[in-house]
């Protein structure tokens, strides 16, 4: 990050700025989705865009995720660079055929004649008291499919740089935003910049344990690292930033350095992103590990509406801190 940066934006503002800059730069960039125009989405991420770019480029769609995602795929194939907005990540279930069987396959099956330079923006994350159908983190689903790139920004700075890279990519990219993070502030340069996919970011350097964290869990891991510092444990926090492509090298090198790893991701633990990353580390750093790689994710339950119950289904600063301390404990 350039040192001169002083300006701070919220995560939502950073996303909006990336979209606005790209829409100014490239007239093919347009937005489809529910309540994206005048409403600016329920999270107010897109406020102001329709005023600048008009309803020709910021298009409110009917409530039909399968329909307007297909619209996006077709528009991308025929020359636009649409950014499709899926309000809650839980609704990606409705878009699966368009994303998995069309967007992800077209470039391959047309022998390179067609491409789908489309971005799907959607959300993840619990603790918003939105109950079981509006609180899931389903990014593992798309990470599983060849042909899709999956981006998980964790800071306003990363959000802007990664979204620009996503819009400029010639292939379909799914961009997951933590809906609880939209108000998070952080430094964001006013100028144009991009962040390459497949390059993990060391959010905090440390020696005793590596906390690999994605999206919403990066801030949790950083909080845990601060608590760990107080008990003399130096934690390194690594954010892969994209689950595919995945920066295996940085993950393995950090694991080799610290010998202990916890992978924290808000998706379901079972068969999830944590499983994949833990496996990459176990294979790549086995002979440098001093403890089993620990995974922390959402509890394997429908996310409860009850605030008390919801809060215990996802990792927190304190649960990560306790897990890290246990992993580093000497008997």
């Amino acid at each position, binding site marked *: 990050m350039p040192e001169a940066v002083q300006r701070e934006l919220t995560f939502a503002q950073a996303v909006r700025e990336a979209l606005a800059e790209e829409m100014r730069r490239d007239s093919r960039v347009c937005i489809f989705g529910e309540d994206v125009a005048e409403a600016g989405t329920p999270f107010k991420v897109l406020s102001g865009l329709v005023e600048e770019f008009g309803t020709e480029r910021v298009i409110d769609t009917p409530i039909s995720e399968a329909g307007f995602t297909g619209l996006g795929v077709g528009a991308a194939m025929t020359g636009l660079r649409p950014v499709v907005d899926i309000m809650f990540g839980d609704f990606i279930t409705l878009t699966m055929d368009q994303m998995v069987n069309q967007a992800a396959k077209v470039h391959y099956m047309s022998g390179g004649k067609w491409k789908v330079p489309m971005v799907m923006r959607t959300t993840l994350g619990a603790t918003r008291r939105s109950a079981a159908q509006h609180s899931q983190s389903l990014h593992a689903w798309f990470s599983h499919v060849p042909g899709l790139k999956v981006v998980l920004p964790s800071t306003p700075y990363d959000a802007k740089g990664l979204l620009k890279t996503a819009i400029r990519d010639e292939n379909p990219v799914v961009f997951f935003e933590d809906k609880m993070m939209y108000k998070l502030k952080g430094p964001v340069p006013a100028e144009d910049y991009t962040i390459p996919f497949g390059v993990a970011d060391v959010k905090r350097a440390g020696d005793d344990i590596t906390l690999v964290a994605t999206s919403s869990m990066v801030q949790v891991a950083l909080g845990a690292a601060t608590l760990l510092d107080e008990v003399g444990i130096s934690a390194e926090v690594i954010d892969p930033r994209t689950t595919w492509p995945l920066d295996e090298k940085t993950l393995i090198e950090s694991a080799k350095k610290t*010998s202990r790893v916890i992978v924290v991701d808000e998706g379901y633990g079972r068969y999830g992103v944590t499983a994949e990353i833990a496996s990459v580390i176990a294979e790549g750093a*086995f*002979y*440098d*590990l*001093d*403890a089993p790689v620990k995974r922390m994710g959402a509890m394997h339950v429908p996310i409860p509406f009850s605030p008390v119950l919801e809060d215990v289904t996802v990792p927190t600063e304190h649960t990560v801190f306790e897990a890290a301390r*246990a992993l580093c*404990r*000497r*008997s």
Partner: protein
Amino acid sequence: MSEFPTENAGWRPPPTIMAISVVMPALEMAQESGKLVAWRKKEGESVTKGETLLEIETDKAVMEIEAPGDGVLAGVKVQEGAVVPVGQTIAWIVRPGEVPPPETSPSESGRRMDAVPARPATASSKIAQTPDMQGGRISPKARRLARERGVDIRSLRGSGPDGAILTEDVLAAAESPQQPSSPKAETLGPVARLMAERTTQSWTTVPHFFVVREIDAGALNQARERLGPAIEKAHGLRPTHTDLLVALLGRVLPKHPRMNASWTGDTIRLNPQVNVAIAMAVEDGVVAAVIPDTDKLEVGAIAVQRRDVTERARAGRLRPADIAGATFTISNLGMYRVDAFSAIITPPQAAILAVGSIADRVVPVTGQPGIRPMMTLTLSCDHRVVDGARAALFLNDLADALREPEKWLR
């Protein structure tokens, strides 16, 4: 990612299996394991029945093992240097093109033993180094570091959860000057281990007593001078003092059956044969090679046999027959300038004769001080088999024989 055993996927057992198993043989009573010293044939090579197939080292000797049938050596499971329980299949002899039977197939030859644990006989055995600790665990990193830095993890106490050995434990041990594994421990070879076991057993269970006699060795020297050239002409080597002593023992022992007897635990067995064994130093201990039917052999034949077994002993290639069936042992440290010493009996033998060096001493000769080549014989006896008087009578006869060796050896 699962790995299917694709190699055998197309294999079907042939209608008739001729495969003959090659098993780790039991060459001695109570032998539990053997070390595979060398394969003389390679996997895939043709062998004929009776050809030397491999070399095995047991507690006592290295020996060659013959192929049990004709065919092609296949399915070699045991590499050189490995210690294998007796009865375990170590390879197969198959028809050309035939595939060795799967693991579970019962062996067709060799002694089967039930779950005989392989003794971790040598430090070089990989199994012995595997840190299968009692209840303890070790992290992959700690294990790798221990290997790289030569830390014996069996000596470590883990500081991790449930006592797991972690990196810091290994590093601390590697940096500690008093690492438990650092004093140089000599690993015992089979000979040394056997020597330790047998001498301890003998010294702690056999009631030893010792009878000593000084002998004028002048006649022995003369006999060696006089007999030497003829024996050299016939056999190509001159007899040593030991050869002459062995020959004389062969003549005297038949007159003293108790000296040639064995303690069986509750009875005394009088051995029909006289088999004198010669204790000899080898690299890591002492072995006693037998000259069978000593009483029936000329000095020259004894010398030839003694040379053969000495060479085999030094090469570590004694056969079981070379060390089996001794009824009496002689140990000569004369060449090491030892005046006299007491030897430990090799059970179940009744006695062992310890021979010191021949040195000029001032002794009375017909009432006057004279200088004679003197030699001290010390006879160690098992008091359960012989008593002092019998031992003295035997030593007396031996002294007589040494006064007139040529008469006894005629």
